[in-house]
């Protein structure tokens, strides 16, 4: 989706730079003239919200690094020092810790959006898979960041998660020893987690770059799931339309974020993590951060160690195969009554799994999480067969038609070419840039 912009610099300095590095025209065609479908709703602002959160996490994270000590005997007290002594340290730590939660909240909404509107379908498979990779990197980064606090839940969470690798046949124990750099989670583990927690956000940043690139090649999906046919009729330029809409989305999201930072900064955390790590005492009830709970429930639902670990990773990996599991030619759930019902069932199942993951490993939660795990995978197993039974609703021919139908206006039929060629109109200021 490019070639719509004719960026013609007037300024001499801009011209000079353009001839050497066309970065300004690139930014202009990507974020100013870029054609966005007319019918995008607010669920489409989560891309901007996520970009904002990534930058916010990197900035607060770099600030925290300046005051944190990645050493097993000092880490916990250095975090407390940040909270009590460092100027505004409490603000940066609460913003970073709650920022991780907000980041995951936004990414889950973003993913469910893609799921609902069929954004993973041809030709957006690579775009979707890059998203799954970003999600995996986020999980690794979030997990390692949580360990750095070196409280009880950090330590035992790290122990449980690294022990997942001991389920690998034959080399399992060697791999865990290698990950730890010792015979248990200890100072070497903390050191390497610190190094990787600093590195991975920049890897995420790079993959986000690829994600946006892929998005700009295929163009955005939209609530009606029909491709752009006529840029003039189906689209509006990114600036000001999407910029303003994203701006409002980010602002509302910031309100929620700030509410957490300033009113309930520890609500999403665990009280046990304010106890320094003790390698000789496991807390009675280990729970990961809320954003890992559904996967944790799947892990615990299966009574076999290796199978539990496989199921947990499969629950994430299966997302990457979605473009080929869903065989329906219709993208948006708006026109797929059965898929729509299935989607909402999947949302309920996912939230249910999260709830079970937070509960102790006892009845009735074990049985419930087993049933929900089967339903979770059942959603993906049903997708290939759905088109056999599903009667889809009529899909509008174009985005313009869908937008006009909403306001009760019938889309004008494609007009025959006027016999007399109209005199070429001088481009108006608003259309010139992106036409």
């Amino acid at each position, binding site marked *: 989706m490019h070639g719509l912009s004719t960026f013609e610099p007037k300024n001499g300095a801009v011209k000079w730079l353009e001839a050497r590095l066309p970065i300004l025209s690139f930014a202009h065609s990507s974020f100013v003239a870029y054609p966005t479908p007319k019918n995008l709703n607010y669920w489409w602002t989560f891309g901007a919200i996520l970009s904002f959160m990534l930058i916010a996490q990197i900035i607060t994270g770099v600030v925290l690094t300046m005051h944190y000590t990645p050493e097993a005997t000092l880490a916990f007290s250095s975090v407390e020092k940040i909270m009590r002594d460092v100027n505004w340290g409490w603000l940066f730590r609460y913003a970073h810790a709650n920022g991780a939660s907000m980041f995951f909240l936004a990414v889950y909404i973003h993913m469910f959006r893609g799921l609902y509107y069929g954004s993973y379908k041809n030709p957006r498979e690579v775009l979707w898979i890059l998203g799954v990779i970003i999600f995996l990197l986020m999980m690794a980064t979030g997990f390692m960041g949580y360990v750095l606090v070196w409280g009880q839940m950090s330590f*035992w969470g790290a*122990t*449980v998660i*690294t*022990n*997942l690798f*001991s389920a690998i046949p034959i080399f399992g124990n060697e791999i865990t*020893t*290698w*990950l*730890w*750099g*010792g*015979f*248990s989670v*200890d100072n*070497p583990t903390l050191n*390497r987690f610190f190094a990787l927690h600093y590195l991975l956000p920049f890897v995420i940043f790079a993959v986000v770059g690829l994600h946006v690139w892929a998005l700009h090649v295929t163009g955005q999906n939209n609530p009606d799931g029909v491709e752009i046919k006529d840029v003039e009729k189906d689209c509006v330029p990114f600036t000001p339309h999407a910029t303003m809409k994203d701006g409002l989305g980010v602002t509302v999201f910031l309100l929620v974020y700030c509410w957490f930072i300033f009113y309930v900064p520890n609500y999403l955390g665990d009280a046990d993590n304010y106890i320094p790590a003790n*390698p*000789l*005492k*496991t*807390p*009675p*009830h*280990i729970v990961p951060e809320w954003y890992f709970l559904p996967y944790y429930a799947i892990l*615990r639902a*299966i*009574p*076999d*160690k*290796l199978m*539990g670990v496989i199921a947990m990773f499969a629950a994430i990996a299966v997302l990457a195969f979605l473009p080929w599991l869903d065989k329906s030619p219709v993208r948006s759930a708006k026109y797929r009554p059965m898929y729509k019902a299935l989607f909402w069932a999947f949302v309920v199942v996912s939230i249910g799994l999260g709830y079970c993951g937070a509960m102790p*490993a*006892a009845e009735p939660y*074990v049985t419930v999480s087993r049933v929900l795990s089967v339903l979770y995978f059942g959603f993906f197993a049903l997708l290939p067969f759905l088109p056999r039974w599903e009667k889809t609703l009529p899909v509008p021919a174009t985005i313009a038609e869908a937008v006009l139908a909403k306001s009760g206006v019938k889309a004008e039929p494609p007009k025959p070419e006027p016999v007399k060629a109209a005199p070429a109109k001088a481009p108006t200021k608003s259309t010139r840039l992106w036409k």
Partner: protein
Amino acid sequence: MSTATPSTDETSRRDFLYVATGSVAAVGAVSVLWPLISQMNPDASTLAMASSEIDIGAIPAGQIVTVKWRGKPVFIRHRTPEEIKAAQGDDNASMPDPATDKSRVQKPEWLIVIGVCTHLGCIPLGNQGEYNGWFCPCHGSVYDTSGRIRKGPAPRNLDVPPYAFLTDTKVKIG
């Protein structure tokens, strides 16, 4: 400079040079890769802390003492006659990782096991669970008074570390 004849199917000196250069580059890459992987394994100071001696004379029957070995807890359980009887009595019971009680102890009254659940590494709680052995609070694995897995997701019995009785009241682990 002379140019080689543009033959495609004959092996030339140039092909040999390509393969030789590529091989040297591959050996070089691997020799750099190995230190990169190996540096993450336990270092010399970690390996040096490999054994510890413990005085067990003061542990009364029925008590479990936890000591630290290689950064992990080790349970030293002074078993009561009833606990020994219960453990030996279950030798033929069906379990995920069958083992006789005799194979897991050197002296029947002393059970020494690594206190790390073989599921995902939590520390099980002593004198708890259905068999009054250990119970892991994380994911509900149940161990008996011989440290054998009886119920729950753990795949193996609690591991027995290498140890030796130096005297009747002194044991060396590792």
